[in-house]
């Protein structure tokens, strides 16, 4: 835990340096505030509209979490199906690549048209975009089991269910976490992208994506910055939560999840 504290302090120092640099750029180049507001102006914007900002953050967080949660559940189920046979994998795997390569910007309007704009549709977009890494990583973990371990199970006449639940699934947990880590960032991006298209039912109120559009149309650059900051915080929050869970579940037995000593 001491190491983590040092890492956090380092990150904080970098943050302070960046803010200082930002202020210096403003002083040296005389940038007008509607193009680049000062750190102080952004802080003021955060203070002035805190409830609104928090509301936007909560909406986006909810959509991202919902999408990510759904993609974990559905992705693991698909991976379990893929692990059953090479044949199934060969037939269906290309479609998961499709999930990864289809530009979300292009299909977001379609999804919104089909499902109706709203939190549900945005959650669905976050779900679609975060699904591929979960499927790919979990499948990998399920099928890459040491052959001797499979033989060991066979020597005890293990059933298919025992092979799956006592060998393949636990073997896939570290890979699943790699997938979730990647997916958590993408889910937030997906939710914000969705909101950019989805609009809001009430003027001025909506998730971060919607609020960013609104602030930019009103030339409220300081608030826009505050929103971008909030989006970043959200992404980080997700990542830290996932990393904590990963550490919590894996540190006792898995190499990658130990406190990072050798980097």
């Amino acid at each position: 835990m001491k190491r983590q504290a040092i890492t956090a302090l380092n990150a904080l120092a970098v943050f302070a340096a960046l803010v200082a640099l930002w202020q210096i750029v403003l002083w040296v180049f005389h940038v007008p505030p509607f193009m680049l507001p000062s750190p102080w102006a952004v802080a003021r914007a955060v203070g002035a509209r805190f409830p609104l900002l928090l509301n936007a953050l909560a909406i986006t967080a909810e959509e991202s979490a919902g999408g990510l949660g759904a993609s974990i559940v559905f992705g693991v189920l698909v991976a379990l199906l893929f692990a059953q046979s090479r044949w199934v994998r060969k037939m269906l795997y290309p479609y998961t690549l499709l999930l990864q390569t289809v530009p979300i910007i292009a299909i977001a309007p379609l999804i919104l048209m089909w499902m109706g704009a709203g939190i549900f549709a945005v959650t669905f977009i976050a779900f679609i975009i975060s699904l591929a890494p979960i499927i790919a990583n979990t499948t990998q973990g399920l099928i890459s089991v040491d052959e001797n371990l499979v033989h060991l199970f066979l020597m005890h006449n293990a059933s298919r269910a025992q092979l799956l639940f006592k060998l393949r699934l636990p073997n896939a947990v570290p890979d699943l976490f790699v997938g979730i880590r990647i997916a958590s960032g993408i889910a937030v991006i997906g939710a914000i992208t969705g909101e950019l298209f989805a609009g809001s039912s009430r003027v001025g109120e909506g998730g971060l994506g919607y609020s960013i559009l609104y602030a930019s149309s009103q030339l409220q650059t300081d608030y826009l910055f505050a929103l971008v900051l909030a989006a970043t915080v959200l992404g980080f929050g997700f990542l830290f939560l996932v990393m904590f869970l990963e550490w919590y579940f894996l540190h006792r037995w898995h190499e990658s999840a130990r406190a990072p000593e050798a980097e």
Partner: protein
Amino acid sequence: MNADACVPEIEIAGVTKQYGNAQTVLESIDLIVAKQEFLGIIGPSGCGKSTILKLIAGLAIPNSGTIRVDGMTPQNARETISFVFQDATLLPWRTVKENIGLGLELERIPKNRRENEIAALLELVGLKNVARAYPRELSGGMKMRVSIARALATNPRLMLLDEPFAALDEMSRDHLNEEILRLRAEQNWTAVFVTHSVSEAVFLSDRIVVLAPNPGRIHAEFRVELPAPRTSAIRNSREFDAIVARVSHTLRETLRP
């Protein structure tokens, strides 16, 4: 003596094995292992030693010939066979205790009986103080002990060991060899032990089979007549050295084209 005791533990007759269309791995192998015999198999790498063990365990199917374990097909005899692999092949997410109990768990032995069995085995292989540790916290020798305890948990009549101590330093290896003999004396299982260490084979075995490669076949056989309770002192005896020299010489023959 009952009639059952006359059935050899393992009967391999005219077995040939080939993976796919590749070169023949084993050619017309005939081998009989008596009940409670300790058979050592030695040979250059790639000559099919692991394949023989897999055939006996029913994990590989011969292309021709027959294999009987205690008069049954290998698949039907599996309940009486335990396999020990070169790397300990433990489940990293399970503690030592949980790893030892794996076979019992897969065979659906009730939990309280499992616990008793595991406690006895921890004692037997000297792992009581690390019962709750995870494999990554153990040394190579300790992992191997866990693997052996796991194999013994299901009360096997036949132990198949595939170079179990190859990755260990000589001291742990010698120590574990003595322990293997002690465990066998207590439990009377039959053993087929693959190794590429001649002295290990001589120390452990009642009989040694030397395999020659390309294709894998039986090249020579040695009976190891060393006095009964084999202790570490035997390694320094003249008879021991003589047998080691003879087996080593034969092993070198197999490498000549």
